[in-house]
């Protein structure tokens, strides 16, 4: 492949998918304005269509191969079996291929996912959550697009059967037309959003953005947050970036190191990533010792009910597998298959990347087995299991609609990846010409997180925070209920206008920041999230009566380099009111305002609010934007707020309870929206409730490091 190095700002300005990914068109640099550089340098690289298809085929076959080789949830007595014997590994013949020699799973009748189709005499790979959404995503992008609305419409039409976070997302879509990212959240009612679905089902979106890792992470930011939140989404971005970067790399460690920018410094995924490298160095030839020690660093997570689905430790096992695999396809498959925990998923992720790195070439060590077992020189197929080929309940991940293809040739799936890649490439300034792709490749946008020591309360004290007019303490517990991750959480108890805050001294004046934090209050208690500069200029949002943990986001503009960011109580709050918080995560974001729809004080509406919106200049048909609506709700609880577009249901978002009464407090509804016409009539419905509605602003869609 050829490499050209040039900047193509105009093409990238038009990027449809990700403003944050490739924006920075104003030419800002850290030197000029401070803050993060959202504009990585572009290097145009060329790859032939044939090579792209071959590598993408390698990636997809790698997903299948890892899954069919990997061991999932194996126990060693009461402990998870970490570091299974090497002789348990048999390429393409693990438990999910029906080999129960070393591990007999429950419900073996439905476990075997590699079965001969009697009609063709060839094996087919049956659906599993390791890849069934990855494959479905290609249909979504092709038929619907990449917006939250597109995902919702596709899931609704095709009726996704899934586990955990995906199953919950489907329920929320069916019951309330819920849009991502709300579908993946605790607040909307996704009980399993912490789980693995976000990354095991969406990481191959990197193959839709070969060489463009920021596009990959932007896609994942929407698709993965449809089914999950927190570190599962962080890992999804790491893996998707690897899938994207692998097209132009040959060394797996280099791919990991480049993708590691997606793991915020100080975050637990980053801690585990670094720990895996450290342990590989400590135990260069003992994968079992490394994995065992790594697992000792597992942290608790709110509502996690199966430790073997912990996204962080599984992420560490993936990194170890790539390290011990030493660029060998089969060794990587082996280590990821036997490392432990959610091994089939880890192996699918790991081997998929190796497939891209190596391509699917006859001279490769894995080629013959893959071809003879799955691919059959292009005749190989994928089967969306509907349960008709065995007796007993299905209990497998699949797409349920009869309109969804029962069987797809693997080549046809790869062709969908290619088709979607070409569309995304062109939208982002690339060129498709003469069987070649000119790709505006970049490095990843730099880490723009601002995590400080004890942001997660895991020092089990209150260091990193100051307080006044109230009591700040760190509560420690062995069962998550107040704490979101780990064992610690902070609790601020009000005396009079109490506050607890961290002072950030390294902000860039004029830049935008987003705080993601998990909060809980006492019953009937209202608290604010605020950012205040030394001059007392204050920005805030409020929330009230949050009696179990939810995530809150607070977006503010830095009015000074140094700002206090934290929680506060109003003068009307009672002595003894309290707020609990954990995982206090700040990042700098891009926030490009593209239209101010209305500027008004908060006004009371009952049941609904109607407004006519003009599509802002520069927004393309089908482009997703964010409509931000200032509101006050005192319903007493969060509830789904339906959005109607030109009289038809568009979707719904969660309206938080901002206030304990109608008097004070507000937050912003962030509605992922796609214009249908040059002028849309948008109705926000909150039947049975009253809400105050204020300013409405449209922003270009952006991506975040934290969800």
């Amino acid at each position, binding site marked *: 492949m050829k490499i050209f190095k040039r900047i193509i700002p105009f093409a990238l300005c038009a990027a449809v998918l990700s403003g944050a990914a490739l924006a920075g068109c104003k030419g800002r640099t850290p030197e000029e304005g401070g803050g993060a550089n959202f504009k990585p340098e572009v290097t145009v690289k060329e790859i032939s269509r044939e090579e792209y298809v071959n590598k993408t085929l390698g990636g997809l076959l790698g997903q299948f191969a890892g899954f069919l080789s990997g061991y*999932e*949830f194996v*126990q*060693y*007595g*009461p*402990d998870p079996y970490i570091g299974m014997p090497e002789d348990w590994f048999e390429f393409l013949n693990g438990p999910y291929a029906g080999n129960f020699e070393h*591990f*007999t*799973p*429950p419900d*073996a009748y439905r476990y075997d996912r590699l079965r001969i189709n009697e009609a063709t005499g060839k094996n087919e790979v049956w659906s599993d*959550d390791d890849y069934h959404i990855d494959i479905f995503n290609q249909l979504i992008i092709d038929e619907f697009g990449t917006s939250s609305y597109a995902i919702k419409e596709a899931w609704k039409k095709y009726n996704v059967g899934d*586990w*955990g*976070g995906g199953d919950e997302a489907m329920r929320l879509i069916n019951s309330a037309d819920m849009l991502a990212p709300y579908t993946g959240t605790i607040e909307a009612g996704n009980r*399993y959003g912490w*789980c*693995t*679905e976000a990354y*095991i089902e969406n990481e191959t979106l990197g193959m839709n953005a070969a060489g463009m890792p920021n596009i990959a992470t932007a896609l994942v930011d929407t698709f993965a947050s449809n089914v999950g939140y927190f570190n599962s989404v962080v890992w999804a971005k790491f893996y998707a970036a690897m899938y994207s970067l692998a097209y132009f790399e040959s060394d797996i460690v280099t791919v990991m190191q480049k993708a590691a920018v997606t793991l915020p410094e100080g975050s637990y995924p980053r801690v585990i990533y670094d720990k895996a490298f450290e342990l590989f160095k400590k135990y260069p030839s003992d994968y079992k010792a490394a994995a065992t020690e790594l697992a*000792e660093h*597992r*942290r*608790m997570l709110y509502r996690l*009910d*199966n*430790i073997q*689905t912990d996204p962080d430790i599984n992420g560490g096992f993936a990194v170890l597998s790539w390290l011990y695999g030493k660029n060998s396809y089969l060794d990587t498959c082996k280590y990821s298959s036997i490392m432990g925990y*959610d091994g089939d998923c880890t192996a699918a992720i790991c081997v998929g990347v190796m497939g891209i790195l190596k391509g699917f070439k006859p001279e490769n060590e894995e080629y013959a087995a893959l071809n003879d077992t799955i691919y059959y020189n292009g005749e190989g197929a994928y089967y969306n299991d509907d349960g008709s080929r065995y007796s007993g309940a299905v209990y497998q991940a699949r797409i349920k609609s009869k309109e969804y293809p029962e069987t797809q040739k693997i080549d046809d799936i790869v062709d969908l990846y290619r088709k979607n890649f070409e569309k995304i490439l062109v939208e982002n300034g690339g060129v498709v010409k003469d069987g070649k792709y000119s790709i505006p490749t970049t490095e990843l946008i730099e880490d723009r997180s601002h995590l400080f020591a004890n942001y997660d309360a895991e020092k*089990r004290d209150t260091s990193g925070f100051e307080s006044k007019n109230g009591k700040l303490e*760190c*509560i*420690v*517990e*062995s*069962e998550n*209920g*107040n704490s979101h991750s*780990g*064992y610690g959480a902070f609790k601020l108890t009000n005396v009079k206008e109490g506050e607890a805050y961290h002072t950030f001294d390294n902000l860039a004046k004029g830049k935008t920041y987003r705080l993601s934090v998990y909060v809980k209050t006492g019953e009937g208690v209202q608290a604010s999230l605020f950012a205040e500069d030394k001059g007392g200029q204050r920005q805030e949002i409020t929330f009230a009566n949050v009696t179990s943990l939810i995530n809150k986001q607070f977006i503010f503009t830095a009015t000074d380099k140094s700002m206090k960011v934290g929680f506060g109580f109003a003068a009307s709050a009672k002595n003894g009111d309290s707020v609990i918080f954990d995982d206090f995560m700040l990042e700098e974001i891009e926030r490009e305002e593209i239209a101010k729809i209305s500027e008004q004080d908060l006004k009371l509406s009952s049941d609904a609010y109607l407004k006519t919106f003009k599509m802002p200049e520069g927004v393309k048909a089908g482009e997703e934007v964010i409509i931000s609506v200032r509101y006050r709700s005192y319903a007493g609880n969060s509830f789904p707020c339906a959005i109607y577009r030109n009289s038809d249901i568009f979707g719904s978002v969660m309206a938080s309870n901002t206030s304990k009464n109608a008097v004070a407090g507000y937050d912003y509804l962030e509605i992922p929206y796609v214009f249908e016409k040059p002028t849309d009539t948008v109705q926000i419905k909150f039947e049975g409730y009253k809400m105050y509605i204020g300013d409405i602003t449209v922003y270009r869609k952006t991506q975040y490091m934290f969800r």
Partner: protein
Amino acid sequence: MKHIFKKLSMLAVAAVMCCSLAACGKGGGTDKDGNVIVQMSLMNSTNENPGWLAMIDAANGVLERDGEKVRIEAEIIMTDSWDQYYTKVTSNILGKIGGTIGRIAESHMPQMVNKNQIADLTEVRNALVETGEYAADAFEGVAVKDGKYYGLPSGTQHMVLYYNKTIFDEYNKAHPEAPVDYPSGDWNNASTFEEIRETAKKLTSGSGASKKFGLSAGPYLAYAGMYAKNSGGDNIFNADGECVIATKPFYDVYEWFEDMLITDKSMPSTSDTQTLDAMARFLGGNIAMIIDGVWQIHDICKYTGDSEIGVAAIPVAASGNVSYSTTFADRFWASRNSPHLKEDKIALKALMSAEAITALSSKQIGGFPVREDCVNNYLSSIESTKLAGYVDVIKGGMAHKVSVPYSTYYNIVDQQINQKMATWINGDMSTKAFVDFMDETMKKGMAGKL
């Protein structure tokens, strides 16, 4: 993914919430009187919690009486599965949080010792032996490694055969021409496998969800040694330490199970107990006989309503064989990385006191007291229940105990056998092949090949 759904009753959850809230804080600390708070991890059980909490109350009374500046608080782990409880407490120890002392099933003790996470309690053991409160041999077994004692026995629990006398009586009333006998309570002259099979067959009736079964008994490895001894064989290993599973006594036992599970269908299979476990079905009058532990005494007395319940010895292969009973001895432990190990040991000593054991056993919880001076209190507490007439049978089992030969590999052997069990029960594997698989798996475990 595939997460785990916790099955906790609302009552259980409510009980746990109460205890968990009390346990919140900074991992112990001190109370307002300057007492070091030692948190004690306990597995959640709605029915057993009152017993353990009473024991802690009594131990705190002893500590106060003795002027110790230590108090114990319960930290109830929200699970009723030993495996999940074990996972949680071992994670907590690594995370330096939660209980610094606790209780653990005997089966999990070797792993706890092997993980090097728990403290050497030899000093406590020696003190308890020196005062004559405990017999020296009470501390032997799975908690001993290299001459050091890492666990203290919280009580022993053995297996018996419970039967619903009312079901027997109703059957006999309907079939006066061919009545069935109650199973024998004589440990030296127990009912035979064949007698129990025939009785079970007769007491089985109906179909589908309302089907009534004659017997429930788990063909698990933990009990295999007991049944094999009752068939004249050895307890998994012979005197030379060799695995003897692939021998006639074991084949006979599993053929007995095959007869009832597959041929007669007089025993519920795993699918029959998927929505309601076997003990719940027994308590509901849906199963006539069940082989289970003395830890069920509390529930049986409380939940079997108007049904009369009897207790019998474990069946044997042939008349004249002595009946043996698998016996478990759960342990108390202390965390090695506790910030107050000295206080943990003081707390454990108080939990081993006569007052604490009496408080526990008065509620028929915790099994047979290991302290000799508390045994009568336990037995007399049973005398005030509907099992009053069976105190001697229950006591007799203690004289016929056989221990499970737990080791660091035993659990994984047990697990692999359990995984294969469905294949056998479904008829996809012969009984001989299944017993051979048990034997091979045990030998692999012994050789460190699992």
